[in-house]
């Protein structure tokens, strides 16, 4: 399982390194979404709104949806499906590998977006840096959940439109926990409740993924 996980994670990251789809398509989208958030707040509130952490996480969720779709798309070309299936990879390993790769990608994108939030929405630099540990954990949970929900929407009618319907309700607690932790970090506190929510979600998604990814793959 672990060997397969590293093999798959390495492959996914290598493909991203070669194709740069996330770098050239998803990151600019995220930055633009942050700029739009500032515009939507209006000229008087754009630079100093307490809504900044929430808007940051909203943008993170949108970007995550795109990253999940990309992570699944590389497995879905008809040729890839048949030929990779004949390798009989351990599904739990594939799940972990794709989760690791997606988490690494989201961490990089998250760092760019956090910098963008400091720049455009004027969140305090020190406070934003204090929010980094909770951001890392939240993005990890999003990666695990995203890999599962991405696999659920495979080869159906319009997976790109189905994914948000399935995933966003489940992402809601992570948005809440992330936003609250970020806001608390800006205010100089760190309530434990948000760590519990995110950790429980992360562990639950990892466990379900390891147990049930095979059910999704064999279909």
């Amino acid at each position: 399982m672990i060997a397969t996980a590293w093999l798959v994670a390495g492959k996914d990251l290598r493909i991203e390194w070669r194709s740069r789809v996330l770098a050239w398509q998803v990151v600019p989208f995220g930055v633009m979404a942050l700029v739009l958030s500032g515009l939507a707040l209006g000229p008087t509130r754009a630079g100093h709104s307490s809504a900044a952490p929430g808007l940051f996480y909203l943008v993170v969720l949108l970007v995550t949806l795109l990253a999940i779709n990309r992570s699944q798309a590389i497995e879905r070309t008809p040729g890839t499906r048949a030929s990779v299936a004949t390798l009989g990879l351990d599904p739990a390993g594939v799940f972990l590998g794709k989760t690791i790769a997606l988490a690494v990608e989201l961490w990089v994108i998250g760092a760019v977006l956090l910098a963008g939030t400091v720049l455009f929405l004027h969140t305090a630099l020190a406070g934003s840096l204090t929010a980094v540990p909770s951001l890392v954990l939240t993005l990890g949970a999003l990666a695990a959940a995203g890999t599962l929900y991405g696999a659920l929407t495979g080869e159906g009618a319009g997976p790109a439109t189905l994914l948000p319907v399935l995933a966003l309700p489940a992402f809601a607690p992570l948005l809440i926990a992330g936003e609250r932790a970020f806001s608390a970090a800006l205010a100089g506190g760190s309530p434990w409740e948000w760590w519990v929510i995110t950790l429980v979600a992360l562990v639950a998604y990892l466990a379900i993924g390891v147990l049930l990814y095979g059910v999704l793959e064999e279909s």
Partner: protein
Amino acid sequence: MTAKFVAELEDAVVIAGGFPLLAGVTMRLEPGTLTVVVGANGAGKTSLLRLLAGLDQLTSGTGVVAGVDLARGDRRLLRRRVGWLGHEGSFYDDLSVEENLHFAARALSRPIADVAPALERVGLAQRASAPARRLSAGQRRRLALAWLLVRRPEIWLLDEPYASLDDAARDLLDDLLVDVVGAGATVVASAHDPLRSEQPRVTLTLAGGRVVATS
């Protein structure tokens, strides 16, 4: 069912999207034989190969391939044991020719050292670092052949193996088939046109998703 056969299908039906791709196939494969599956477009040739490879699910009927029960067994174990030559050729188009084979070799614990000679043999050594997406249809076929060389499976399932291959590659494939059948592997190939190789073979004629003649 006996272990005498590599594959045994009894009234196998495969349904996809409400359409019976296979409508009751009964057939057996003996080890160390070459079987050619012929039939018109849509007769079910590719579907039969996919079923034998464990890629598609059996809807009804029974089937055992390489000791794996197609209805109840773990088809993943079966897929690890068959070699598949389809139209796709590569695993991931964004990876290079060499990276594709390295990935597959690691997945099935094959020696990485076998990759370079295999690429040499199919004439892709010069293109080893090219992205798979830049390969022509014929080169993709050669890449798939190179993988089968590294893989050396016990069951070879070849879907229209001669399509888009030039004469040199066809000769290579012919030699390869003589070689592996002689070594005891079981080969099933679908073809519109009869195989060029002069080897003894069983011919299954498919029509309407069933075997209508065996010779």
